[in-house]
């Protein structure tokens, strides 16, 4: 099992907290919306990713458990 990040683009309104809390995996585009590294969250960042998910005011930053790593997740 591995953890992957999914951003709900409909819910997201560019608060940008996720990029503050998890700059290792999240950058913001020129309009302030998050661009997330694809693939599994490295184990040492999972706790920070949970925090980012919990603190997202729009509940748009989500963590999913993936059974196997998918090469071309979208």
């Amino acid at each position, binding site marked *: 099992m591995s953890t992957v990040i999914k951003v709900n*683009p409909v819910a997201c309104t560019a608060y940008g907290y996720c990029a503050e809390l998890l700059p290792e995996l999240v950058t913001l*585009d*020129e*309009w302030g*919306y998050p*661009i997330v590294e694809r693939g599994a969250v490295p184990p040492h960042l999972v706790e920070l990713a949970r925090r980012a998910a919990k603190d997202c005011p729009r509940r748009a930053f989500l963590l*999913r458990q993936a059974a196997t790593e998918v090469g071309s997740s979208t």
Partner: protein
Amino acid sequence: MATATTDSTITTDRAVPGDRSTLLGGWRARHRADLASHLAHHGAPPLPRPGDHAWPPRLAAAVEASGLTGRGGASFPSVTKLRLLASAPGRRTVVVNGMEGEPASAKDKTLLRCAPHLVLDGAELAACAVGASRIVVCVADGDHHSADAVVRAVAERAGTALAPVTVEVKRPPGRYVAGEESALVSWLDGGPAAPGWRPDKGHSLTIGRRATLVHNTETLAHLALVARYGPESFRSRGVPDAPGTTLVTVTGAVEHAGVYEVAMGRSLGDIVHGARPTDEVAAVLTGGFGGSWVPAAALATPYAPGPLAAVGGVVGAGVLVVLARRACGIAETARVARYMAGESAGQCGPCVFGLPAVADDLGQLWRGTVDGGVLARLEARLTAVDGRGACRHPDGVARMARSALRVFTADAAAHASGRPCAFARQPSVLPATVGAIKAGTT
């Protein structure tokens, strides 16, 4: 939504002259087929007797053997959708997607207006195959001609053995993204006509608690032919990887803009030249506004998903817009991008902010009023919008713009250095949409 100017011309390809087992073969153009003439032409659809449990899997097997794929843009195997829904719990609905939000496309309107009973046959057969108790035909709110044809056809069938499942006609708003299947289902469910975010693709759509099958108009008409004439008849046209015929709307710089039924695998050049280009062809926009440009050098390419992909093209919604040599591909691309920016559902930031920014960059490039970084900035913005919406609307714009930079490389470089081509100020080759696009660019 502007109605395409192309829907008055309906032409059947030479490969299918007068052949009754095709969509438009032997059909008299511009006449709505009433029930009597439909039945005289095709005979009754092979609907099941009540309680015949062997029938649904038999129909699914025929659809599978035919190799029919969705004609709405995704080219997804039709049988997969049928089986997914047949195994869904609870009550089910079949939705006929006749929205045709693609401005350059007129194929679904053509079918709904000329052969509504063939589409309804397909819907009834699909409903029986998946055990649905409701059929909803969706026609855009501005498309009165198509809706009238469907309503009259539904009335002719009501109470007969040809309507085992009742049919409703609904009129969702005729916006570009309203025809995206999750947007359509959302609207039918009382929500906005906007796409939903589906992180886990593959689960079925629902209206209320009813599992819902959404099929394009043309797909269902083909299904009705497969059920009648058999998968071998369907596969006797087209190529092994892309069997059957398909409807193509050819428009742009051609004398005979219209809807053509062609066998899959015919060359792009054959199809384009059948519509009589007005001048030497420079490029063709394949798929529609969210499709991609293909250069004239690739006109020998067979019209089918695989070969088209190899030259950067797409079947998409079955649209071919012809650009003549004396025209500006950058200008056309900028107009299309501006239109598409205006058609965003307004939900996802990268689409809401990114598409107008992309259209601004392309507009600068078009006019030659550029700063030094326009091409690099445009590339970065295309990366920033691609794949970042709930639906594929921004992806389509990114694909179309990238293909323009690839196909019109020399033009783009000249425009970027402040030297727009002599044709940049010409009227658009997109007659069906010039009004809508103009509104966005002035």
